[in-house]
């Protein structure tokens, strides 16, 4: 029998096949991001290679790129020899956890108010919130210290942890923008079903904001992990110091910085964060699917 119903085979030119388009996409994207990537990874590479060098080899000219000998002992020595980094690690975790949780709670509340609730004076207060970001640290550092001194909070972690429970303008603004991108249809539907304002926040807004919340958590974590001056000013007992202060302890005033130990400890400190970030990327990218509203 004749095959009269066989559709004529159309030959698609090779540059229009799906396979080619996908490969082209990959190549294009990588061509654009690799140059930047090379430059951006350089400090990290310097950090890791310096951590493995003997001190005298760090600044030779011409520069030595591959450490020789490889000093794995720098990690152990840097961590234990001079300064109790393990204790500092726990101290830092205490401060950082407070900051992350405190910020998540207080900034979500405030951002929700700014994003969803109408009130007189809202705009002025929002400008006040932003305004607190616009006064540089150097002119408030002394009055702020005197304030905490008068309430006897110096030499404690309180000045470093308690304010986080009252909100931080960067995060309030960030969450406000995200919340304002969520359509009101779901809110209205929930209200018809009898949900309260706070119920909407908890059941509707928050589940749809996982990437934004993850972002706030990451920034709050990193910001406090690396915070140096605040802890140094407020804490007087050296066993209460943080990791960032510990790192500074390798900095000599005569240019005699122990870069090898400093970078070794910096690598130890950074590696877990990098690994967690790498693995937790699903929270940022396609963590949730925007369903619920038909187009």
């Amino acid at each position, binding site marked *: 029998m004749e095959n009269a119903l066989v559709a004529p085979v159309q030959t698609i030119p090779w540059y229009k096949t799906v396979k080619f388009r996908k490969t082209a996409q990959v190549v294009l994207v990588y061509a654009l991001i690799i140059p930047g990537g090379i430059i951006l990874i350089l400090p990290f590479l310097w950090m890791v290679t310096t951590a493995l060098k003997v*001190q*005298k080899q*760090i*600044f*030779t*000219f011409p520069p030595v790129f591959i450490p020789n000998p490889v000093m794995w002992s720098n990690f152990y020595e840097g961590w234990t020899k*001079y*300064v109790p980094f393990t204790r500092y690690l726990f101290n830092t975790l205490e401060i950082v956890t407070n900051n992350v949780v405190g910020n998540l709670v207080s900034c979500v509340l405030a951002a929700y108010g700014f994003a969803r609730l109408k009130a*007189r*004076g809202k705009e*002025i207060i929002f400008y006040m919130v932003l305004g607190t970001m616009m006064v540089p640290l150097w002119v408030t*550092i*002394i*009055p702020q*210290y*005197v*304030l905490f*001194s*008068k*309430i006897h909070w*110096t030499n404690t972690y309180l000045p470093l942890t308690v304010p986080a429970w009252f909100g931080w303008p960067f995060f309030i603004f960030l969450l406000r923008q995200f919340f304002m991108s969520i359509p009101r249809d779901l809110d209205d539907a929930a209200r018809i079903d009898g949900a309260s304002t706070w119920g909407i926040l908890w059941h509707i807004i928050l589940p749809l904001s996982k990437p934004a919340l993850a972002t706030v958590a990451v920034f709050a974590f990193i910001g406090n992990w690396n915070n*140096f*001056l605040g802890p*140094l*000013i407020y804490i*007087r007992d*050296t066993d209460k110091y943080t990791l960032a202060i510990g790192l*500074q*302890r*390798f*900095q*000599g*005033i*005569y*240019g*005699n*910085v*122990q870069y090898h130990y400093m970078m070794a400890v910096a690598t130890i400190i950074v590696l877990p964060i990098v690994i967690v970030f790498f693995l937790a990327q699903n929270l940022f990218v396609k963590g949730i699917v925007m369903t619920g509203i038909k187009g």
Partner: protein
Amino acid sequence: MAKKSLSRRKFLIGAASVSGAAILAACAPQVVEKVVQQTVVVKENVQQTVEVPVQQTVIVEKAAPAGPVVLTAAHAWEAAFEAHQEEFDNNFMKANPNIFIKRVNSDWSAHNQIVPTWAAAGELPDIIYVHGSRAFPWNKEGILITVDNYVSADKPFDVAGIWPEALKLYQFNGKQFEIPYDHGPVIMGYNMDLFDAAKVEYPKPDWTVDDFVATAKKLTIPGKQWGYSGYYGNTFDLGNEIGIALVGGWGGEVFTDDESKLVVDSPESVEALKWWADMYTQKIVPNAAESTAFPSGVWVAGAAAMFGLATWGVPQMHDFGNFKYDVAPWPKGPKGQKTGSFGSGYGITKDSKNPDVAWTYMSQYLNVDGMNFMWASSGRGSPARLACKETYMKAAINPPNAGYFYDAMDKYAVTGHPYHTAASGEVADILGKYCGLVRTGEMTPEDAIANIVKEANPKLAAAAAG
């Protein structure tokens, strides 16, 4: 349920009063009830002494500490040297069981931010590190106390054994506030390996600036190494300790002695500075672009045959340098030999509750034995006492002829200005700015000097008057 809406204004007023009240409550002195005896007139011509309850406002003083007196000291050491400090403190505590030493360490710039912060709250530690540049402003503002009475009563301390040039850095209104711990000059370091390779003779102890520039020319290989790399990489520089080193040999000065104006535009100083700047033209010194090619410094990387070296530059050489080096006296200029010196010290703060005990520590810390232990034997900056020379020269990290540092302090080094004017911060920045432009080749030395004098003299005059 309808609720009254809170008006904006009420909110803010309420807020202000709450915070105001909180702060006031925290600062209010305590009110206690006391019973006092008063003589009252009971009846005409009859007086009786009765006991009357009275409310008195007293400032409650902290109870005297039971047990050891705790002294806090703020240093600017890095962790590696703090181990040495800890050893000293432990020895001290063993010898003085009623005193307990608590240490705080920052890095240098953080220290200078933290001290004013603590001072404002009245929470300064008993003893603090004071860099020479901070002595005047901090003393003027009264955040440290004078030690004259302690020093004169403490004969074994031998304050006369400390360089007068060092002591005067920490004097204000004729009174001594801090005691220097290190004070050193800028002399000439040289890379013996490069000299050997070029078969050039090492600098002689009585060499002149002409010998110096001839040697530098012989040791310059274009693109590879320079004969002289300046002081911390800067050949044209008017900072405290190096400015006078550049112009002193020609009989010039940078500041007048009372620091009421700059005289760097005098014919002698200009001649000197032009001589030094000419080395850029001859390409025997690296310019700014070339100098910054080395993160640790041209000289530490081994690309400079000679370099200005102060005693506090030695630890860095030891940590990162990979060549043999030694030091020679600062070369003699046409009209004499002069170099600059500077240093740091320690003082007792206004917030110290036990200044007498604090002096006990300072006395042990900064006498001959203390200085020998802390800085002479470790080679870390030259101690401010001639008596420490022997020990200092034997320190492992020091170059073979480290005695030349002491010779300079003894014979021809003066403390570099400015150090007793309120305008020193601004003037230092002005000097740095224009010298920097000479180094990048964007300004001639003559223009730089003219600009410096034009901008800085009004500020110096104002500071001298007010």
